[in-house]
């Protein structure tokens, strides 16, 4: 509990960002970008005046997947790579909830890659925030799909030699309805992006550059390289695709805000009593 109470109390119905954080202290390393995401997420939720009880934060395995415990909302810390599946199931079963899926680049683009592709296709109304630090942090420093090809590590000495996974490209071509990139060093900008993502119907994908101070200390330089507001949203996929051809990976903002209707079960629906089904069997 933050004992620094503000004497000028906020208006009764309004919650501040701190009301969206739990009292569990994060164990992330000092310098970790993920702290910025907690703050941005809390700020966005406060701005939208969401009820914490109506929000669920779903994650997989990894440093950034620890986020659910740090938010005051409901949380689900599942198995490695399957957060999008769990989130989709939750949202389809409970469309009244706001579902926010979180995780890292390893959890999301490697073991979760298949689910990422299909989540974009399926376009369930939820928001996916990936904290990308281009490394597997929790297992002590192996290359992830977004790691540069020549980054040396014990598991892949001299680098993987592989072209990096392109999350925004995959998201666009697979049908995600909202695509953006943020940076933990710009938490206010990120809070705005998250707010827009949550408000936007369908599958909203936010890739967040989040430096890993322990395994990728060189990422401290990112704050000098990122360009805020460099992406301007378009609803035209072709335009967005052309924009991506010039993408450096460090341009922030909303790339694409489309108009695909979000996933909804098709066909006529009703609420008849189960016994009426017996008509199908009765001779």
């Amino acid at each position, binding site marked *: 509990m933050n004992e620094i109470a503000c004497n000028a109390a906020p208006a009764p119905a309004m919650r501040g960002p701190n009301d969206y954080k739990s009292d569990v202290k994060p164990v992330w390393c000092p*310098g970790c970008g993920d702290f910025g995401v907690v703050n941005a997420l809390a700020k966005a939720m406060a701005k939208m005046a969401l009820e914490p009880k109506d929000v669920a934060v779903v994650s997989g395995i990894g440093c950034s997947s620890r986020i659910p415990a740090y938010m005051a909302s409901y949380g689900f810390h599942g198995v490695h790579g399957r957060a999008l599946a769990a989130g989709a199931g939750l949202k389809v079963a409970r469309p009244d909830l706001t579902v926010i899926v979180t995780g890292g680049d390893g959890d999301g683009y490697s073991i979760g890659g298949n689910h990422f592709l299909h989540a974009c296709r399926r376009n369930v109304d939820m928001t996916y925030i990936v904290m990308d630090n281009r490394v597997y942090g929790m297992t002590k420093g192996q290359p992830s799909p977004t790691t540069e090809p020549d980054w040396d590590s014990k598991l892949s000495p001299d680098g993987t030699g592989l072209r990096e996974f392109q999350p925004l490209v995959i998201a666009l071509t697979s049908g995600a309805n909202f695509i953006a990139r943020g940076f933990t060093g710009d938490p206010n900008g990120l809070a705005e992006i998250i707010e827009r993502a949550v408000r936007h119907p369908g599958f909203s994908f936010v890739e967040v550059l989040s430096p890993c101070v322990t395994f990728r200390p060189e990422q401290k330089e990112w704050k000098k390289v990122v360009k805020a507001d460099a992406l301007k949203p378009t609803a035209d996929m072709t335009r967005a695709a052309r924009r991506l051809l010039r993408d450096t990976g460090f341009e922030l903002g909303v790339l694409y805000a489309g108009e695909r209707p979000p996933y909804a079960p098709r066909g006529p629906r009703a609420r008849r009593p189960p016994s009426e089904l017996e008509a199908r069997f009765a001779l």
Partner: protein
Amino acid sequence: MKKTKLPRTVEEFMAYAWVMEVEASDRYAELADLMATHHNREVSELFAKLARIEGKHRDQIAAQMGWTRAPDAAVFRWETPEGPETTDFGDLHYLMQPWHALKLAEHNERRAVEFFERFAAARVPADVRAAALEMAGEEREHVRLIGEWLAKVPPPEPGWDEDMDPPAVAD
């Protein structure tokens, strides 16, 4: 880069100043927690103290303005990623020394001075200018106080950031 809307009244201006102190104080409190989790007690206590100090500044502004509720400061945005007095999470190190923490605080106060001086130099009403100059003066005093504090704190020893142990794995 988003432009900060220039305040048209002293009330608006002091709202910016108030938010700046709130964010600074909240951030120092967060940093105190996170350093405590990493067993860096000295720096944790230092950040906690800075949180209290900024909290006092915040309360002084509210008292001075006679506010009973938080001002509506949602209309503006910082030009920098966060408020001028808010410490960047990325500038921390789990082995940092009190000296480092105070240097960060000093940097924050200096940026606050510049922030207010920019307002004073901009096209604002005279009473806002006066308020901005007054705030700049106060922040300069803070810079001086931090400087005094720094002088009493030993500079970091060489090898302060050396940890012979490799990172641990928790998952």
